[in-house]
């Protein structure tokens, strides 16, 4: 029976955390070399209702019992043959699996030196012989309740951490894969760079790229206000809606109006998303886009020299008002043109004490990077490295960077 119990706990560690398990089900190990004291303590516990009491007659015997089935609490004598209570305490506390088990010492040794030594070796509490039933029961109860409570919290914490990690992974999964990007690069004669790094807290960035026709490809970047699970779930909501609106990919201004009304109905009041949706026409060498309050994208045109310029990205963030008309913007995007989209995390970092990088600071930095010819992957890595150098520790928000370059060379193998 105890073996079956153990297997069940191992298979479903969270099961117990979810249940209101009574502390009376706790497994208590009584360690004492005197059979009389063992029986006395055992009887105290049983009459109180504890049903899972086991015994050992010295430290070594206790280790053997513990190996078979881990107890929830130990009541321990100090003076015993073979292995005494001090030694057992020390051994248990050096085992990571046993370091938090409550150990209640019951002993006739009550000098300050003994008590100090017992606590130094890892005892949780101490009662002095002769055994007083109410004292031992009260202390056992306090330590068991505390242990159960901490276990519940730990299990809950572990489960939430694991679910957040899964959600983070799901966010990564909805980004275009390397294979998809490679296919699109060949099909449209583009160089595409894609960097998405969700923050540890989960965030609200989402980006995507969709083929529209043989000569047109659409892309977007959106960022939901706030952080955490709600913002992350909204990215999935937006993606589902976007897929059902594929007929509007060539009319980004109408698409954004529609998304604005949709999000106004579905988001909490005051919540919103910033978004830029664009469509590249490879044949015409043109890029049309509409924006709802994103950071300003960067555009480099070979005919205008090596510097990037900031494009207009003004627009009411999606979801704040019931209806809104968005502006359609058109920029040239012929051979050699480059367009960079990014989320706010990239520019909301201090470049000097008290001074944020901002869109204009990024424009200068990116222009400088592209003055030295390199593959776009190398250049993007430099942007990311500059960003990381400015951070103290973890990424505070999702970071997305999307790079699009018209190479003018289609390499469609289909």
């Amino acid at each position, binding site marked *: 029976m105890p073996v079956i119990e153990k297997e069940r706990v191992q298979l479903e560690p969270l099961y117990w955390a979810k249940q209101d398990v009574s502390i009376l089900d706790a497994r208590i190990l009584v360690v004492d070399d005197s059979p009389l004291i063992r029986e006395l303590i055992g009887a105290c516990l049983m009459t109180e209702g504890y049903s899972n009491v086991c015994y050992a007659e010295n430290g070594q015997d206790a280790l053997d019992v513990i190996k078979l089935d881990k107890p929830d609490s130990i009541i321990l004598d100090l003076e015993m043959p073979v292995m005494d209570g001090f030694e057992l305490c020390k051994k248990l506390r050096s085992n990571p699996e046993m370091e938090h088990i409550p150990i209640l010492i019951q002993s006739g040794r009550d000098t300050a030196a003994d008590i100090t030594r017992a606590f130094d070796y890892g005892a949780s509490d101490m009662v002095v012989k002769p055994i007083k039933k109410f004292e031992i029961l009260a202390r056992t109860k306090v330590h068991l309740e505390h242990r159960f409570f901490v276990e519940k919290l730990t299990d809950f914490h572990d489960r939430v951490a694991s679910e957040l990690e899964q959600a983070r992974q799901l966010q990564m999964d909805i980004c275009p894969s390397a294979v998809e990007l490679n296919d699109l690069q060949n099909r449209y004669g583009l160089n595409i760079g894609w960097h998405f790094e969700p923050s540890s807290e989960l965030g609200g960035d989402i980006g995507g790229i969709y083929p529209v026709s043989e000569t047109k490809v659409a892309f977007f970047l959106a960022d939901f*206000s706030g952080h955490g699970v709600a913002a992350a779930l909204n990215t999935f909501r937006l993606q589902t809606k976007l897929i059902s609106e594929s007929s509007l990919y060539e009319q980004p201004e109408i698409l954004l109006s529609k998304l604005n009304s949709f999000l106004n109905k579905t988001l909490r*009041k005051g919540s919103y998303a910033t978004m830029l949706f664009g469509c590249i026409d490879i044949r015409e060498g043109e890029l049309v886009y509409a924006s709802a309050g*994103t950071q300003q994208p960067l555009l480099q045109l070979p005919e205008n020299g090596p510097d990037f310029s900031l494009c207009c990205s003004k*627009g*009411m963030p999606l979801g704040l*008002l019931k209806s809104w008309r968005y502006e359609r913007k058109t920029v040239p995007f012929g051979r050699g043109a480059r367009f960079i989209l990014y989320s706010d995390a990239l520019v909301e970092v201090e470049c000097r004490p008290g001074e944020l990088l901002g869109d204009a600071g990024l424009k200068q930095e990116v222009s400088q990077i592209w003055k030295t010819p390199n593959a776009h992957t190398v250049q993007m890595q430099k942007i990311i490295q500059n960003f990381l150098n400015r951070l103290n520790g973890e990424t505070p928000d999702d970071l997305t960077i999307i790079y699009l370059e018209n190479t003018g060379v289609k390499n469609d193998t289909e």
Partner: protein
Amino acid sequence: MRDSVTTANGQLTISIADKLTFEDHNDFRELLKLMTGYEHRSCVIDLHGLQTIDSAGLGMLMIAYETAEKAGMSFMLSKPVGQVERLLEISEFDKVMRITH
């Protein structure tokens, strides 16, 4: 967020300083109650001391505008500077509400 409130001649002036972020959500809601609980004809949110605002803060300003509109009050954002001014501009808040510089 640091805030101060003054009233004169039917005008409610709420000055917000330092930061307006997600953490200020509850305090800001308390401020909004001032707009509906009394008979003010107009509401001015003075932003000249506000150094930074995040996405939640921007949402709160839109809620303040809508609250004023529902209560039949005129509404104005006053003297935004720096990052706050840029964010309001990029989000086209000036097309919905009065912003004075």
